[in-house]
C-alpha cells in the first residue's frame, strides 16, 4: 500500500491543506492572523512530538530552537538581506546543527535529567544571545518597515509569511508520519518503550536519538524566522520563553503523544480554547484559570490525550488516526 492510500497519512495533511487553502482563498486578514497562531502551534507541537512522542525524551527547553533559529533567520534576513525563504531555511539549519552538537552530549541523560539539561540549554542560549553583538545583544534586532516592501507591502508580506508557515506545517506533518512509519521510527519507538532492550536488539540509540533531535529542532528554527519576521523585531526575552516550551508540551499531551494527528488536535484545541476565552465577554478575566482547570482534568483522566483515547476506544478509527 502506498502512503497516499493510508488515511493516517493524508487525513492530517488534508485538514491543514484545506484549512490554509480556505484562508488564502477567502483572504480575510483576521482569519489569517488566527490561522497563523494556530498553524504555528501545530508546527511547533508536531516538531516536539517527533522527539517527545517517538523517543519519549522530554525536551523541556525545546523553544531554544525556535529562538536560535529565529534569531539566525532574522539576522540573515535583516542584516544580510537574504530572502525570507532562504533565511527561514538558514534558521532551521542552524537549529538543526546546534541540536546535533548538543544532542551528542545531553541525550546520554535520561528522564528528568535530560529535561533539566534542555532547560539549561535554553537559558544558556538566552544568555549568549544577550551578549552577542552581531545579534543586537540585549536590545535585539528589528526590520525596517520598508523591508516588507520587497514582498509588495506589509499586507502581501504577511500573506507570504502565512503561506510559508502553512507549507512548513504540512512538511512537519509529513515528516512526522514518515519518521513514525519507517524502519528508523520503529527503532525510536523501541527506544521509547525500553531503551536498553532496544539497544540489545541492535538499535543504535545514541545515533538515532541525535538524528531525531536534529529533525525536531529544524522546523522550530524555520517557524521562528517566520514568526519574528512577521513581528518585525526580535529580542532575547521573546525568543527563549520557557512558557512557550511548556505550552508545546501541553499541546502534545492534550492531543496524544506519539501520534501524528495528536499534536494537530492538541495545538488547535489548546490555542482555540485560549483564543476563545481571551475574547469571550464572560471568561475574559478568567481565561487562564478555566484553561488551567481543563488541562488538569485532561491530564488526570485522559493521559493518552484526545487522539490516543479515541484510538484506544474506537477500534475502527485506529487505522484512520495515526
Amino acid at each position, binding site marked *: 500500500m502506498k502512503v497516499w492510500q493510508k488515511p493516517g497519512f493524508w487525513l492530517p495533511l488534508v485538514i491543514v491543506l484545506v484549512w490554509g487553502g480556505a484562508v488564502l482563498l477567502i483572504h480575510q486578514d*483576521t482569519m489569517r492572523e488566527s490561522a497563523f*497562531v494556530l498553524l504555528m502551534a501545530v508546527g511547533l507541537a508536531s516538531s516536539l512530538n517527533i522527539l517527545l512522542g517517538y523517543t*519519549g525524551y522530554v525536551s523541556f527547553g525545546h523553544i531554544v530552537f525556535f529562538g536560535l533559529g529565529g534569531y539566525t533567520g532574522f539576522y540573515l534576513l535583516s542584516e544580510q538581506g537574504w530572502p525570507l525563504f532562504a533565511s527561514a531555511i538558514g534558521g532551521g539549519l542552524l537549529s538543526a546543527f546546534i541540536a546535533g552538537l548538543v544532542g551528542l552530549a545531553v541525550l546520554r541523560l535520561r528522564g528528568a535529567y535530560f529535561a533539566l539539561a534542555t532547560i539549561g540549554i535554553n537559558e544558556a542560549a538566552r544568555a549568549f544571545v544577550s551578549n552577542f553583538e552581531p545579534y543586537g545583544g540585549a536590545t535585539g534586532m*528589528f526590520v525596517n518597515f520598508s523591508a516588507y516592501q520587497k514582498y509588495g507591502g506589509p499586507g502581501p508580506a504577511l500573506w507570504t509569511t502565512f503561506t510559508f508557515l502553512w507549507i512548513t506545517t504540512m512538511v512537519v506533518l509529513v515528516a512526522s508520519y514518515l519518521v513514525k512509519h519507517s524502519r528508523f521510527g520503529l527503532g525510536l519507538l523501541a527506544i*521509547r518503550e525500553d531503551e536498553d532492550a532496544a539497544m540489545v536488539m541492535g538499535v543504535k540509540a545514541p545515533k538515532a536519538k541525535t538524528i531525531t533531535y536534529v529533525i525536531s529542532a529544524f522546523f522550530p528554527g524555520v517557524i521562528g524566522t517566520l514568526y519574528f519576521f512577521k513581528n518585525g*523585531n526580535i529580542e532575547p526575552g521573546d525568543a527563549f520563553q520557557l512558557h512557550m516550551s511548556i505550552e508545546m508540551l501541553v499541546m502534545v499531551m492534550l492531543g496524544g503523544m506519539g501520534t501524528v494527528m495528536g499534536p494537530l488536535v492538541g495545538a488547535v484545541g489548546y490555542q482555540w480554547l485560549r483564543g476563545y476565552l481571551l475574547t469571550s465577554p464572560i471568561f475574559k*478575566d478568567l481565561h487562564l484559570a478555566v484553561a488551567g482547570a481543563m488541562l488538569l482534568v485532561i491530564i488526570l483522566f485522559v493521559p493518552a490525550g484526545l487522539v490516543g483515547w479515541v484510538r484506544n476506544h474506537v477500534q475502527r478509527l485506529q487505522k484512520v488516526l495515526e
Partner: protein
Amino acid sequence: MKRFGVGFVFVIALSFIVASLSAPPGATAAAKTVKPAAAAAAKTVTIGFTASKTGKFNVEATRQINGLHLWMEQVNGAGGIKLADGTVIKVADKFYDDESKKERVQELYTKLINTDKADFLISPYSSGLTDASAVIAQQYNRIMITAGAASDSTYKKGYTLVYQSYTPASRYLTGAVDILLKLAPKAKKIAIIHENDKFATDVVKALKIYAEKKGLNVALFEGYDSGTADFAPFINKIPADVDAIMGGGHFADTTTLARQLYEKKINTKMIALLVAPPEPKFAELGDACISVVGSSQWEPLAHFTKESAAKEGITWFGPTGEEFINAYKAKYKEDPSYHSAGGYVAGMILQDAIMKAGSTDTAKVKAALDAMNIMTFYGQLKFATGPKDHGLQLGHDMVYIQWQKDKQGKAMKQVVWPLAGATASAFVCPAR
C-alpha cells in the same frame, strides 16, 4: 514510555496550571468596557488596544488603562469632542488581554481593526508588545498612540502613523549629566553599571554618547544580568575618583545596587539610577536612598502650568496636574503613577488632534499630530516628523527627582530638574 519523564511533565504541567490560577485577575471593575450612551447626533469613534490584564506587566498596564478610561469618562461626560462643523464625537473602547505576551498581539490588533472596527489604536504596555502591534497599525492605516513604549527603535522602522507619548529611552538619563555638570562643573569621570536588558541597554548606550559629548570620561561601562543580587564584583571595579555613578535597570536590582553602593561606602558626587528612585517604596532604603537621583516620565509634584506654557509660548491643553490627580484619586482610590498619566495623555493627544483636524479621518488627524506642539500637565508634547524617526517624542522631557531629607529628617522626593518644574535644588552626595 519512561515513567520518570511523564511524572516530570505532569508535575510541571500542574505547577503551570497553579501558576496560571494564581495569576492576578486584574482590576475587573475598572476594566469593563466603557460604552457611552447613544446620542442621535453623536458619532462614536472606537479606540482599540490590548491590555496586559494578566502576566508580568499587569500592574503598569492596569494603571495605564485606568488613566485612559478616566480620560474617556471625562470626554464623554463633557458631552464628547465637539468639532468645528458641529459634529460631536463620543469615544468608546474595545480591548483584549494580551497576557503580557507577544504571541497574540498581532492577532488581537487585526481583530480590533477588522472585526471591532477600531478607528484609533493605543499601544499595549511595553516596547516589545508595541513593536508587534505597530506593524499591524501601519498596515491597516490606523493611527496608534503609544504609551509605556519608551524604546527608540520602534520609531526608527519607518512607521508614519505611530506616535510616542513617553520620553524615549535615549533621553531617560541624559538629564542626569546636565545635573551633574551644574552641581560639579569640574566633573570628569563617570561609571555606568546597567542591567543587560533591552530597555536599560538602550538608555545607557545613549547616556554614554551624551556624556562623552559633554566631555566626560566613561571610566566603567558594565552590564549585569537581570536578577543580579550581588553587585560587589561591579562595585569593586568602580575607580575611586569617579564623579558620578549611573545606570541600574528595574526596581528590584536597582534598589539593591543603591543599597550596596551605600554599604560599601562608595564616595561620589552623584548617583543617578533608572526606574526605582521615583517609586515611593524606594524610601525604605533609609539613608541609602538619600541624594539618589532618578528620572520619571511624570511626577505629581512636577509643575507644568498654563503660566509656564505661556512663558514658553506653547498652547496649553487639558486639565491641570491637580485636577488630574484629584479626579484619578476619586475614581480609583489610589495615587496616579506616571503610567496612569501616560494612559491619560495618550487619550488627550488623540483628542487634541481630532479637534484640530476637525475630523476623524486618518490623514487629517495625522497632519494634526505632525503639527502638534502643546503643553499639558504631563509636559510638552511634540513629535519628530522626519522619515528616520517619525513619531518619536521630542517635546516631553524626563522629570528628575532626588531623595532629600525634610526638616524632620524624613526622606522625601523633590523634583530637581528641569529647573522650570523644580521644587528644590539638587545637592551633592554627602560623604559616606
